[in-house]
Each structure stands twice: as C-alpha cells, then as structure tokens.
C-alpha cells in the first residue's frame, strides 16, 4: 500500500507515491510510457536503504489528465523537478521514457541528483532524431488515464544525440559525484548508445548501480 502526496506543477496535480519507508536519501522511481507508479517494490529495489517514491507523470496514473494534449519530455522534466522540490536530494531510477527524463533531470539538477539510472522500459526510443513527417491528428479527449495524447506525443518526441549529450555534460561537469549517470538498459537506441559511451557515464547491472549510489 502507498501514501500519496499531491504536488502542483502549474495546473497539473501530480501523484507522488511513498512506496516504502526507509532511512536516508530517497530513491525516486520514474515509470515508462503508458505505465504508472508500480505499488510493488520488486527485486533488487528492496535493498535500497532509504524511502522509495514513485511519481505518476502528467497524464498517467493518478496525476491530472490534461485537456487537448501538448506533451513534451521537457514538461515531464518539470514533473520530476516538482518531486525533487518536495523530496530534496534523490537518486533517480527511470524506466524507458522515465529513463530519458532521469537523464534530463541529472543534467538540469546536478546538485540534487545523486545518481541517475537509466533502465529498459516502454518509451525508451522516442521518435525521430531528425526532421520527419508530422502526423497532425485529433484523438478525442475524455480524460482517461493514461492519456492517448501522452502515448502519441511522448512516443515520438525528438531525441537527437547531441541534445542528449548536452545533458550528460551538464551532469558530469558539475563534478558533484563520480559517474552521475549509469546505463543499465540492454536496449540502446541512438541517444542512449551515445550516452552509455560518453565520458563519466557508467554501465552495468541495476543492483550494483543502486548499491553504489546508496553508499554516496
């Protein structure tokens, strides 16, 4: 069972779930595209010493479903930042789309993110990395979660390699910790392949990455 805290991000009310109590730095879980915070804390997460929180992104889980879409991953970065404003310093573990947002967060808030882990999950690829045809279509809005517009728009957001690497540079050059980003995903679309081989980025297994960041 979980306790829900409501966080305001502009007109959206976000659901931040406390999944398990603990002592020390919180672990913030960011779900994949079309998912929501998983109430089950499954292996290897129980080994994390601190509290474990899961955030429902805009249009997902128990967070507000906006009218008329307009999603970008930058907005989800704002969602994650609202969680950091509430929790303070965190270690972040993101699945799929949440893994990409974890990268953005590590670059935007290097003083607050004590380790960002990028794991496999839905929405890891994103859309094209260069100008492509745009499908302009209305999906109809009925407030259901997950929002069809979230699935459409966040499934095709642009993730050029050099843009992703700018966030790696911001995270690593802040020098707050060694290897502030760890890639544990097996599947590596172009942006993630570049991130995984960039200087200052670690790769490996999820349990080892969690253990290392827990010791910081």
């Amino acid at each position, binding site marked *: 069972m979980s306790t829900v805290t409501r966080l305001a991000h*502009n007109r959206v009310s976000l659901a931040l779930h406390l999944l398990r109590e603990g002592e020390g730095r919180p672990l913030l879980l960011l779900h994949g595209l079309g998912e929501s915070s998983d109430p089950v804390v499954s292996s290897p997460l129980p080994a994390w010493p601190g509290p474990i929180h899961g955030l429902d992104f805009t249009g997902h889980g128990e967070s507000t479903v906006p009218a*008329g*879409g307009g999603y970008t991953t930058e907005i989800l970065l*704002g969602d994650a930042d609202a969680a950091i404003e509430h929790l303070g310093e965190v270690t972040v573990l993101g699945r799929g789309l949440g893994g990409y947002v974890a990268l953005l967060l590590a670059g935007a808030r290097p003083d607050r993110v004590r380790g960002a882990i990028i794991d496999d999950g839905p929405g890891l690829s994103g859309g094209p990395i260069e100008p492509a045809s745009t499908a*302009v279509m209305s999906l109809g809005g009925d407030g259901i979660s997950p929002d069809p517009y979230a699935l459409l728009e966040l499934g095709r957001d642009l993730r050029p390699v050099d843009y992703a690497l700018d966030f790696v540079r911001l995270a690593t050059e802040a020098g707050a910790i060694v290897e502030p980003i760890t890639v544990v995903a097996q599947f590596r679309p172009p942006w993630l392949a570049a991130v995984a081989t960039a200087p200052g980025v670690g790769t490996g297994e999820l349990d080892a990455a969690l253990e290392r960041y827990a010791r910081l």
Partner: protein
Amino acid sequence: MIEEHAFPGAVAPARAYRVDADGVGIAVHEWGSESDPVLMLVHGGADFARTFDVLAPKLAAAGWRVVAWDQRGHGDSDHAHLYSFDADLRDAATVFDRVAGRSRVAVVGHSKGGAIMTALADAHPFRFGAFVNLDGIPYRRPGPDVPEHQRAGALGTELASWLAHRRRTAGGQRRPGTIAELAARRGMMNPRLPVEWLEYLVTVGGRHDSDGWRWKLDPSMRLGGFGPWRPEWALFRLAGLAVPFLGVLVGAEEPMGWGTRPEHVSQYLPRRSRLEFFEDLGHFVHIEQPDMISELIVDFLGAAL
C-alpha cells in the same frame, strides 16, 4: 468604466465564436462577409487574433472572409494544461475543419504563426490554396563555432531559469498595471510600434480586474526556451511546399523575430515562390505598413488563386 482607446483604422471583428479543440476552447474572430472566400490569418507568439484589427479589415474590404483565432493560452482562448508546437498545429487543423472543411483556403501567417503554418502546409497540404509567410521563417544565425561545453553551459542556464519559472507558475498571475504601464512593458518587445497602438492592444488583449489591467496571455507561457527542435528544420519543410508561396522578410533588428535574411533561405524556397525583402521595416511589418502589406497580400492571392 472601460477607457476608450481607438486606433486609426482598427476595426473589431464582425463575428466571434468558440471552437472546441479536444477540451481546449479556441476563440475565433472573423472580419468580412461570410460568403467571401476564406483567408486564415495566424498570429505569432505572445500575440492574439486582434493584433490584426488593422490588417484584417483591409483584407476583408478586398473581398476576403478573414478568420483569425487565438492560439491556446493567448487572447480569449482557454489557458491549457500543456503547450507545444504539435498542439498548436492540431488546434489549427481543428479551426480549419470547422471553417472550411477540407477545402483549400488562403493562409497568411505572421512570425510563429508563419512557422506553424509552414509545418501544417507540409503535414496537411490539402488545406492550402496559397500561403503568405510574414517574417515567420525560423533561422538560426551561423555565429562563430560555439564549443560544446559552452553550448551545454548556455543550456544549463536556460534550464535553471525555466525550472524556476515552472516552480513559480502554479497559481501565478500576471502583474497588474495601468494601460500605459502594460503598453510600456509590451513596448520593450515591440520598440518600433507606436505607443497609441500598444495602448489599444491592452484594451483588446488585456482584461480589466479590480486592481488594474492584465494581459490575457497565460502567465505560465514564456518566450524562448530550449528543446531538441532546431529552428532551421523549418527550412526543410519549406523547400517541399507545392502551394503558391509568398515570403516576406525584414531587415530592421528587433527583440522579436529570427533575424532571417534572404540569403539564409533562398536555396530553400519552394519552386512556386516569391520573396519580398524590406530592409528598413521591422518584425511587425503588417502593423508598421498595413496598407502596403494588405495590397501585397491581396495582389499575390489574386494572382495565385
């Protein structure tokens, strides 16, 4: 009591109504006879439909049913939860559907409105009969090579400022002021426009609360920003357009606009195109020279359609 602020040549729309874009109410304004051919007039960032109060009646007098809408978050349209270029495109397509179905219409877009219409002309070419782009061709100046760490540093600064804005904006509202104060604030971004015009805009783009005037523009919206999108990508879409195209560019430096010059875009102009360059005019060319620009548009559309 509302103060009267007339402006020479400014005419309020003849009709106003709302269109529902998947739960976001879009305010549409029309000038001219309903039986005339449709001309869609599309405003830029931080503007609103009634910034066309001088240009639109001139086009209507020349025989066009002029249709302009406030983009989400702007003017009288709803403040949305989220904003994006794709959402603006979708809202535009919804207005086109309502006004013209799937028939081809004339389209005039200014600034960001020109950029949105360039993308829509690429995605939905079947909607366009002729297209005029008023200083709305995005371009990034090829400055000296910026080292990667400097580019990342600039992004870091922008990110911190944007996230601080996102944290502040929940429940925020715009600063109130007198008509003269709001006009003076807007004048910072529109230094070439007469103060009488800016004061007129306050009375049609602002609302009068008990503590003063406020721009209707959603306070969560912000000019500039960051993201993976490159301004020059619009040029690739421009090159592929088959619709008769008139591009207007200007030479005067201003806070708004991309500073695009003819040599930046000439190789990307579509085959059936014409480019006009006005060295001494600014980004709001249709407000500086409404007679000249309306004649240019009317002549071009007359020849193209």
